[in-house]
């Protein structure tokens, strides 16, 4: 009788555990919020059911060096949250065993609006972008089947995948979709510029910032289009060619000589914190960036049309422009604890 009772109890408990497990995953769906008066995002979370659990899984993966072949490098090694997810003080970043890449680590801001990824735009969808750093021999050097096997051996990840997808079977698709839930949610829309545009009470540009905004409007806005501060096009901005990397940019993807030396127009949001600048990180200061546009342009057949007319700015005007660019800093983005590595005790 006693034995029977124990069996009964064990069975009931097992059923309960199964039931709880069944209802605990996947988590509640979250709607991706589009900031007021912004365009419709390119990435559609309709095909990647967004949930807190999915985001948390993506965040855990983003910060885990397990994703690299020798478990030494994570996504966050080259994309640090407090520098708008670029690699502070690194012109070019280094992957496993200190191997160097060929382009400056880009910021990860408002990626859901991007029409393509990487400096050359070779990647067509946010979800598959991560395959590049994961498998590049000079970055994380992983092979996808081995990485999936590695993650599948981890009890922690089997649990997290179950929570996110209602299934503990780990696949490439789920890995990539959860990473996209994290990176796609790195939205920066609360800079001083945004407050001014939203006419929030008590917030206005200083005289210097306002002057800078006017200069921006007449010289930079065609390519660095508001509110995302990029038109996602590819342009040759007249940087002097380099003899070592000989990077032809977009042409590597299209094989079209007309695309030679063109790179994707980057967003200017949080630019104050995302040095060094340009596709190869060749300059460190905002003033140097502006100096390039006024006096450093090198002529070549594919030079951006917008730069054929010389931009002339006085020293004071350059300071105004820098002041405006600094209004694109979004502290609530840079210091967002939800974007940092989760602390577990």
């Amino acid at each position, binding site marked *: 009788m006693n034995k029977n009772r124990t069996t009964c109890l064990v069975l009931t408990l097992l059923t309960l555990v199964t039931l709880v497990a069944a209802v605990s995953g996947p988590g509640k769906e979250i709607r991706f919020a589009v900031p007021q008066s912004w365009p419709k995002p390119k990435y559609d979370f309709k*095909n990647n059911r967004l949930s807190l659990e999915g985001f948390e899984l993506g965040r855990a993966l983003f910060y885990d060096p397990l994703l690299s072949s020798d478990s030494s490098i994570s996504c966050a090694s080259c994309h640090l949250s407090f520098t708008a997810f670029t690699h502070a003080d690194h012109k070019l970043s280094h992957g496993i065993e200190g191997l160097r890449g060929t382009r400056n680590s880009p910021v990860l801001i408002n990626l859901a609006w991007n029409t393509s990824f990487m400096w050359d735009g070779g990647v067509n969808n946010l979800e598959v972008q991560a395959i590049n750093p994961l498998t590049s021999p000079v970055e994380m050097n992983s092979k996808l*089947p081995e990485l999936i096997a590695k993650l599948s051996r981890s009890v922690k990840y089997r649990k997290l995948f179950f929570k996110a997808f209602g299934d503990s079977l780990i696949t490439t*698709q789920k890995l*990539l979709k959860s990473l996209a839930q994290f990176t796609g949610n790195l939205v920066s829309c609360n800079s001083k510029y945004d407050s001014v545009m939203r006419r929030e009470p008590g917030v206005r540009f200083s005289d210097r910032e306002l002057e800078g905004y006017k200069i921006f409007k007449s010289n930079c806005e065609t390519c660095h289009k508001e509110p995302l501060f990029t038109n996602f096009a590819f342009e040759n901005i007249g940087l002097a060619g380099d003899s070592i990397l000989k990077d032809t940019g977009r042409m590597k993807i299209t094989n079209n000589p007309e695309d030679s030396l063109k790179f994707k127009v980057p967003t200017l949001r949080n630019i104050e914190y995302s040095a060094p600048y340009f596709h190869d990180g060749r300059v460190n200061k905002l003033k140097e960036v502006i100096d390039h546009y006024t006096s450093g342009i090198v002529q070549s057949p594919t030079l951006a049309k917008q730069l054929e007319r010389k931009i002339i700015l006085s020293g004071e005007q350059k300071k105004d422009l820098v002041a405006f660019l600094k209004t694109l800093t979004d502290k609530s983005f840079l210091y967002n604890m939800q974007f940092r590595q989760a602390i577990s005790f």
Partner: protein
Amino acid sequence: MKGMSVLLLLISVLFWGFAAEGKLTRPANGLKLIFKPVFRGGSLCLHTQAYIDFHGDTLYVDALRFYISSIMLKSKDGGNYKKIPGYHLIDAEDSTTESIRITGVDEGTYTAIRFQIGVDSLTNVSGALDGDLDPAKGMYWAWNTGYIHAKLEGHAKVCPTLHQEFEFHIGGYLPPYQTIRSVELDLGTLKIRANGESVLTLHCDVSKWLAETDLAKTNSVLIPGRQAMKLADNYKEMFSVCTIY
């Protein structure tokens, strides 16, 4: 008595076995489509079998993989094509991938089959996919995103490469270098019955893929472009009907 029970047990096991068998091999209105890799009629044997191409060069094939999608059957009366969804990765290394089971085809007589070699452009921009389209299958370019429609690798003494290897990874979904190709084959008569599975075996002849390729000159095509277009035009000619029953 003991013998009787053993016999009974045997009978029941056999019966159970037959029942299970019957369930597995009799899908209603089914078609089993087999892609059989060959080299000029003979079975394709990877790694060890030497073949001679149209140039007279000796070569070995190490890998043959390609996607089959948008399978359609032309019916005798209507002339309409019935599109069957799904993407199938055929891999000469794994014979289980060589047959595609299609169920739910309308009963009737069909006169032609059409399919695409490769993955359509919409699927190429659809993000992370699963199953045969899993990027981990090695048929995906990450740096210039898109599927490799077809892959042929091997080695030949005539190749002036490091290990005498040749590698053709053919992909590209953007104009002007779209390498997805459509194939249409005349079937004569293919009958799909109400109960039972018809079997259509197609040959994929690697010698035809290499028909116009001089391995001494063309041995490495790994990006979309003009050369990939030419090779795609060649592998389109690989397919022929072997048997129908």
